C-alpha cells in the first residue's frame, strides 16, 4: 500500500477512537447533570440554574418548575434546590474538563483508552 495512504488510514482509526471517547465523555457529562428532585427530573444546565437564581433573587422561597418531562414540580425550598443543581453542575464540569484535557494529550489509541 502507498505509505501515505497507510499513514492516513492509521490516523483515521485514531481519530475515530478519539471521537468515540469524546462522545462518551459528553454523554457521561449529560448523565451527571441530571438532578432528580421531588419526583421531577431536571438538568443542571445554565437555563435552569439561572432561572432558579433569578427566582431566589426576586424573593421567592418556593415555586413550581416544569421538569424535563414537562411535569409541574413543586420546589418547596429553592435555595436547597439551587445548591443541588450547582453541586451537580460543578461536579460534572470538573470531571468533563479533566477528561477532555487528558484526551487532548492522548496522541495514540492506547493513551486514549488508558491502556
Amino acid at each position: 500500500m502507498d505509505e501515505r495512504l497507510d499513514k492516513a488510514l492509521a490516523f483515521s482509526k485514531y481519530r475515530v477512537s478519539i471521537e468515540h471517547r469524546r462522545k462518551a465523555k459528553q454523554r457521561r457529562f449529560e448523565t451527571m447533570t441530571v438532578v432528580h428532585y421531588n419526583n421531577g427530573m431536571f438538568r443542571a444546565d445554565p437555563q435552569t440554574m439561572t432561572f432558579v437564581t433569578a427566582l431566589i433573587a426576586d424573593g421567592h422561597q418556593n415555586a413550581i418548575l416544569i421538569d424535563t418531562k414537562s411535569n409541574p414540580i413543586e420546589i418547596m425550598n429553592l435555595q436547597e434546590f439551587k445548591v443541588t443543581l450547582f453541586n451537580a453542575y460543578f461536579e460534572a464540569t470538573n470531571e468533563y474538563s479533566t477528561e477532555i484535557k487528558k484526551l487532548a494529550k492522548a496522541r495514540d489509541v492506547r493513551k486514549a483508552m488508558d491502556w
Partner: protein
Amino acid sequence: MTSGIAFFAYNTEQIDYIRLACIAGRYAKRHMPDQPVCLITDSGTWDWFSKGPYADHAEQAFDDVVIAAADARANKRTHWDSPYHSFASDFKNGNKHKVFSYTPYDQTLLLDIDYVMMNDSLKWVFESDMPVAMYHQAEDLIRQPMPLPQQHLSTHGIPMVWSTAVYFDKRHELTKLFFDVWEHVGDHYDFYKFLYGFPGTMYRTDYCVSIANHILNGMGHGELINDLGVPMINMSQHDDIAKINSVDEWVFTVNDRKENWEDTLALIKRENVHVMNKRSLDRHYDTIMGALDG
C-alpha cells in the same frame, strides 16, 4: 419500608449465570452499599454453586437468597461471542414477572445479571414515588442508537421498553396491575406476536413489558412506566471486553455492524453497562473479582 436490588440466575448447560450474578451483585454493593442484594435462583443452581470453589463469592455478593423454580417453558436463545462464534442455550426468563412476589423488598431494582453498575446514578429511584420504571432508550458502546429492530417492536411498531433494569414499588396499586399484564402477555405470547408483529421465536421480556406499557397507556404513547432518565449503554454480543483497566474502567472492542472484520476500542469509565456478551464477562471473571477485591 424496605428496598433492595434483585437478580435472577438460572444456570444452563452453556452459561454459569450465578457466577455472572456474583459480578453484578458485587458491583451493586460497591456503588449502592445501602441496598441489600437478593439472588433469585433454583435449588439446583444454588446447590451446585454453594458447594463449588466460588461459594464465598456468593456470600460477598448477596444478602438474601430466594429459591424459586424456573418456568418450565422451553426457550432457546442464540448467543454470540464475537461475530464469528455462536451457540444455542436455554434461556430461563419465563418467570421474570414473578419477581413481584419473589422479592423480599417493597422497593426493588431488578437487574439482569449482565448489567454492571459502575456508578450510583440509579440510586434516586429508591427516593422516588414511581410505581414502575425502566429504560426507554438504549445506545451502543460508541453511543449510537441501537439498530432499528431494537428500537421498535416492528418497523412501524410500538417503541421498545427495556426490561434489563426494572424498578418497582410493590405498595403502588398500579405495580401489581403492570405485572399482571406482563404475565398475561407472556401467557398469550404467540397472539401478541401476531398482533404487534415482532420477530423471532425466543420469548423476550422486553417485548412483554413494551406491550404492557402500550396497553396500560390506553394503546398510545405515554410514560405510565417511567423512564430511568438516560439511555442504557448496551454492549452488542459481537463486542468483547478487551481489558479491565481498573474496577470501574473497562476497555471494549466494538465490532462494526456493517463491516464485521473491523473493530474499534471504547472505554467505559464509571458508567453502567449492559454486557450482552456473557462469555466475554465470564472470561474476565477472575480479573474483575480481583479488581473488586482491590
